[in-house]
């Protein structure tokens, strides 16, 4: 356990000692340029040509001219560069000197002494950038965008949707099982529901993919059925067994004397349920709900298979969303070990770990308070 924490956080926090620019590269500008520090977001906007004038960045009124290494042939012939690129650093240096609005992106081995240009400095990635950043685009060129807001929101939306679906239904079934159904029905249904908690998430995901996704697509007439709603429904179904068993157990602890007293006073069985049983077991029900959310937040495979995985801030549950676990699962395979992207995914793992830890502690707190009350 300690080891897990150590490793995760070691890799995850390494993110903040990085700057967002691709390792082994430099960004250079003309030496007379007043801009000397850029953020990752600004850099991306420059290379996406959303920012076209240095004025927008606090520099002088001069349009921005982009230069990537592959553009070199527009300026120099192969002979001038040299057969083995031996004159390449010199050429880049000259370009940076002569064009006033230039911004160039090239590997740092070409940054030689006496380079006639100015290196742009990048701040280390900050916590604020990561949490408030609206764009998750870790492979962006030349600067990775590591805003996790869309992922956090995606996770929250899907999990909340799931719990909104599962809680009322689960609670109703728990009441039915614990208070209304006769013993025989209960002894069949309860193990059955518990059994369903054991079905692997990838099977639920597969079911969602072949049944629920097409259904949603037809029902709402959408271009794609892989939406947050599909994720919520599948997660809701998956959370049901947890919610039902835990809240049913809680209701079962209601002292018989209390129930009988209520009935003896003339209350109906239904009145007893909502006036005595539910208030008495409310802490157990809360624990069930929170545990359900915890399961939904951490669930990976089912969500990965049905939510469409678009890393954009969702505006409704009918859009594709991407959750934190799904992001890790989908991207870790492609992220080179030790790189920025890899570390960013470990940071996501840390966030996930902390969230579930908090959830566990809350549940524990609730149930320990309950024990205290009982004694």
């Amino acid at each position, binding site marked *: 356990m300690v080891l897990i924490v150590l490793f995760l956080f070691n890799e995850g926090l390494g993110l903040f000692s990085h700057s967002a620019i691709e390792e082994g590269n430099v960004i250079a500008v003309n030496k007379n340029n007043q801009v000397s520090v850029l953020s990752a977001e600004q850099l991306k906007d420059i290379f996406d040509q959303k920012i076209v004038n240095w004025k927008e960045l606090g520099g002088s009124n001069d349009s921005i001219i982009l230069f990537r290494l592959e553009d070199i042939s527009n300026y120099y012939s192969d002979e001038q560069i040299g057969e083995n690129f031996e004159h390449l650093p010199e050429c880049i240096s000259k370009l940076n000197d002569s064009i006033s609005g230039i911004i160039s992106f090239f590997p740092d081995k070409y940054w030689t002494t006496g380079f006639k240009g100015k290196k742009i400095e990048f701040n280390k990635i900050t916590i604020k950038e990561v949490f408030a950043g609206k764009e998750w685009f870790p492979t962006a060129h030349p600067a990775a965008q590591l805003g996790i807001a869309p992922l956090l929101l995606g996770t929250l939306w899907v999990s909340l949707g799931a719990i909104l679906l599962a809680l009322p239904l689960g609670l109703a079934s728990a009441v*039915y099982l614990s208070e*209304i159904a006769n013993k025989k029905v209960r002894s069949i249904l309860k193990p059955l529901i518990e059994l369903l908690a*054991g079905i692997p998430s990838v099977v639920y995901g597969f*079911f969602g993919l072949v049944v629920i996704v097409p259904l949603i697509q037809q029902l709402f007439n959408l271009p794609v059925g892989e939406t947050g709603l599909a994720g919520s429904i599948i997660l809701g179904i998956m959370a049901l067994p947890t919610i039902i068993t835990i809240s049913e157990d809680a209701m079962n602890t209601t002292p018989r004397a209390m129930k009988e007293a209520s009935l003896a006073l003339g209350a109906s069985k239904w*009145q007893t349920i909502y006036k005595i049983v539910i208030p008495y077991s409310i802490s157990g029900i809360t624990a069930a709900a929170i545990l359900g959310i915890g399961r939904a937040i*951490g669930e*990976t495979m089912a969500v990965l298979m049905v939510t469409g995985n678009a890393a954009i801030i969702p505006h409704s549950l009918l859009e594709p969303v991407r959750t934190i676990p799904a992001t890790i699962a989908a991207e870790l395979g492609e992220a080179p070990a030790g790189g920025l992207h890899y570390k960013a995914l470990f940071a996501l793992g840390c966030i996930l770990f902390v969230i579930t830890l908090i959830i566990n502690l809350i549940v524990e707190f609730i149930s320990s308070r309950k024990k205290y009350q009982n004694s």
Partner: protein
Amino acid sequence: MKLPDENKLEKLKKRRQRIAFIILGTIGYSIVAILISILTFIIVKGISVISWDFLTSMPEEGMTKGGIFPAILGSFYLVTGSIIVAFPIGIMAAIYMNEYVKHGTAKKIIKQMTNNLAGVPSIVFGLFGMALFVNKLGFGDSIIAGSFTLGLLILPIIIRTTEEALKSVDDTFRQASIGLGASKWQTTKNVVLPIAFPKIITGMILSIGRVSGETAPILFTVAAYFLPRLPQSMFDQAMALPYHLYVLATSGTNISESRPMAYGTALVLVVIVLFTNLLANALRKYFSNKVKMN
């Protein structure tokens, strides 16, 4: 004599109760119906695919034909490996907690850690397994790395069930043994463990079900998309059932043609999970009856 409006109230109360019970019952049964229909769906769609060939041959033609033998074998290796990793540690931890330190802070800490470990999402185990076993210890993507990762995942289950098993052993057994001059370890080894053993086995069976279904922890520690040959040693990659289902469902070369394969794989997975759970339940019942008779 009752007043007439009191009669009305009584009727209203009854009617309300009837409506509420009908609603609750409908919801309860429909949820069970939904869950059962998922199962039935997988079973009905998968049963026509299952054959001896499907279970024992290699995938063919871009996984649209043939069988899933390497995935079954891979899952078998992973289950065995993770149990070898987790079982001794888990049992020792539980013995230590239950027999040796009945009330210390050490016990509290271990208990707290186990509880928290049980709540950690499986993908986080995958991340950790990748960082430690695959990269740091240099196992690479291999069965051994996957076994260690999955072993960690089932450790809480094993500790918890073993602890329950040990707790269920009546203290008189321990007192009698110690009274006869046996040491604590002798008592644990010769008296407590044999009595608790059947229940410990149920924990193991449950973890078999869990391990065979987990996908996220093996994504980056062992699972291979497709391997033309079976793994030769524990340092080889392997295919595994849940990952195979994921691949078939989402990223096969020809998704619509590999659908039947996917249904078949899903059914195999479901059967393993249902079987292990039922077996564990049956064993638990059988042994609790036996203990009562004694």
